[in-house]
């Protein structure tokens, strides 16, 4: 078992008086790969904002076991195409530390940014304008930026949204490889259960303001999923990949 990174104890989150997530208890450990899965508006991003320190719990507490670096990967649409930035400029942002005031990039920062681009297979795109890149290339740039922070925790918000199937597959393979090679803790936020089920070691299922969490083996049972989503769900294996789908009426778990 890895070293604990963060523990959430009875955390309730929301905006103003509106509660989005209630009484969430969860522990992330070093080297785990978590899938935060749920429909749009189920509170996944709210929990990510709390982990990033952008949102304070209304009650409960978030306990960090040590000071860690978080590599955050937003959806690629977050970055405006108006921005006059090359791919390398964006990745270099991962080397900004502390306040950013008085910061100057060193040759070592550039070397680390280029190494991160190399790791995600886009070293040749360094001088290209961000706006000229394809969706998959943009997502790799944002992943390289997060890796350039030398993170303990990699937090990815819907990284495959809007990508075609081969690109989605390539990004997920890349994430698996980074997780394996770096031993970094990963939190993948997605609304696609099948996507998380094939990469994650642990799942947190978001539904109606509640979070149910555990290892993939515990969570990926038809009974558990059907109870969480309140609809019959089937889990199948196809060419070595787990596929989660709505069950046909004849195969619904009783």
């Amino acid at each position: 078992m890895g070293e604990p990174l963060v523990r959430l104890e009875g955390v309730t989150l929301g905006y103003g008086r509106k509660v989005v997530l209630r009484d969430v208890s969860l522990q992330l450990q070093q080297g785990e790969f978590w899938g935060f899965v749920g429909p749009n508006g189920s509170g996944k991003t709210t929990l990510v904002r709390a982990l990033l320190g952008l949102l304070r719990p209304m009650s409960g507490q978030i306990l960090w076991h040590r000071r860690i670096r978080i590599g955050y990967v937003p959806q690629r649409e977050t970055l405006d195409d108006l921005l006059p930035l090359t791919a390398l400029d964006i990745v270099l942002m991962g080397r900004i530390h502390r306040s950013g005031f008085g910061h100057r990039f060193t040759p070592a920062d550039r070397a680390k940014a280029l190494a991160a681009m190399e790791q995600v297979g886009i070293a040749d795109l360094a001088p290209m304008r961000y706006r000229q890149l394809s969706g998959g290339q943009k997502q790799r740039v944002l992943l390289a930026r997060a890796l350039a922070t030398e993170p303990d925790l990699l937090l990815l918000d819907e990284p495959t949204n809007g990508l075609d199937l081969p690109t989605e597959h390539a990004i997920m393979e890349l994430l698996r490889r980074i997780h394996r090679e770096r031993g970094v803790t990963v939190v993948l936020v997605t609304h696609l259960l099948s996507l998380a089920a094939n990469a994650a070691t642990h799942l947190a299922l978001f539904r109606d303001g509640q979070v149910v969490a555990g290892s993939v083996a515990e969570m990926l049972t038809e009974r558990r999923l059907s109870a969480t989503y309140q609809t019959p769900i089937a889990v199948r294996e196809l060419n070595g990949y787990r596929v989660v789908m709505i069950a046909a009426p004849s195969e619904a778990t009783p």
Partner: protein
Amino acid sequence: MWEMLRHDFLRHALAAAAISGVALAYVGVYVVLRRIVFVGAALAQLGAAGVGLALLTEQSPLLMGSAAVLLGVIGFALLPSQERTVSRESLLGAAYALASALALLFVAKSPVGEAHMVSLLFGDLLAVGHGDMELLAIACLLVIALHLLGYHAFIAVTVDPTFAHAVGVRERLTNLLFYLSLGVLVGACIRAIGALVVFAFLVLPPVAGLLWARRFAHAFLIAVGVALLSSLVGLSLSFRYDLPAGPSVVAVCGGLTLLAAVGRLIEVILCPSR
């Protein structure tokens, strides 16, 4: 052009336009990228209302103009980030309309009367004195120094505030400093160059810069260059053809920006991959 520089008041006018143009064009790159152009317009009009109130009450226009702009900045910072019933643009539009009307009403009722209406809108570049110049220069230099010191922090928060926060940039403080610097700048420039020129410098040179820039540094350089060139050519034309100074500078600035846009359009047509 050299003949123009023989006159003391024209040298002052050129220095005032150039200094404020450089600072406004630099900060304007963020204004355009953050899509808060309307904030710039509303702040410029609030500054004009402050100057109008100063003329009515016979107080310092610089002080009152700056105070009105800073109040506007605080008001903008207090606007809820999540729109519930009324959009932020609507509130800014209301502030713009109200401030414009108040500015004109204050001036109309002031001892100096309607003679100041035009200078309120277009500034009074040709009347910038030593004291005004020093204050303007200090305010602009302070703002530029702050932005150079926090170069990476301001860019990071503009590009992706959540990521900036994740790597340790104090995103709220950086945003507050940004809006305060914008407020100080608009407040300091409004009396010298007027609401229209302030707004034009905040938007037109940055647009020209962003049309051509590959990187942030290029956008800042092009914007500053366009502002400087507009000040020089605009004032020369104003001197030569006896035109009002402020509108001449804005017209040249607009012409250069249009030229940049047409040039970019031609480049895109000839070379679509760039």
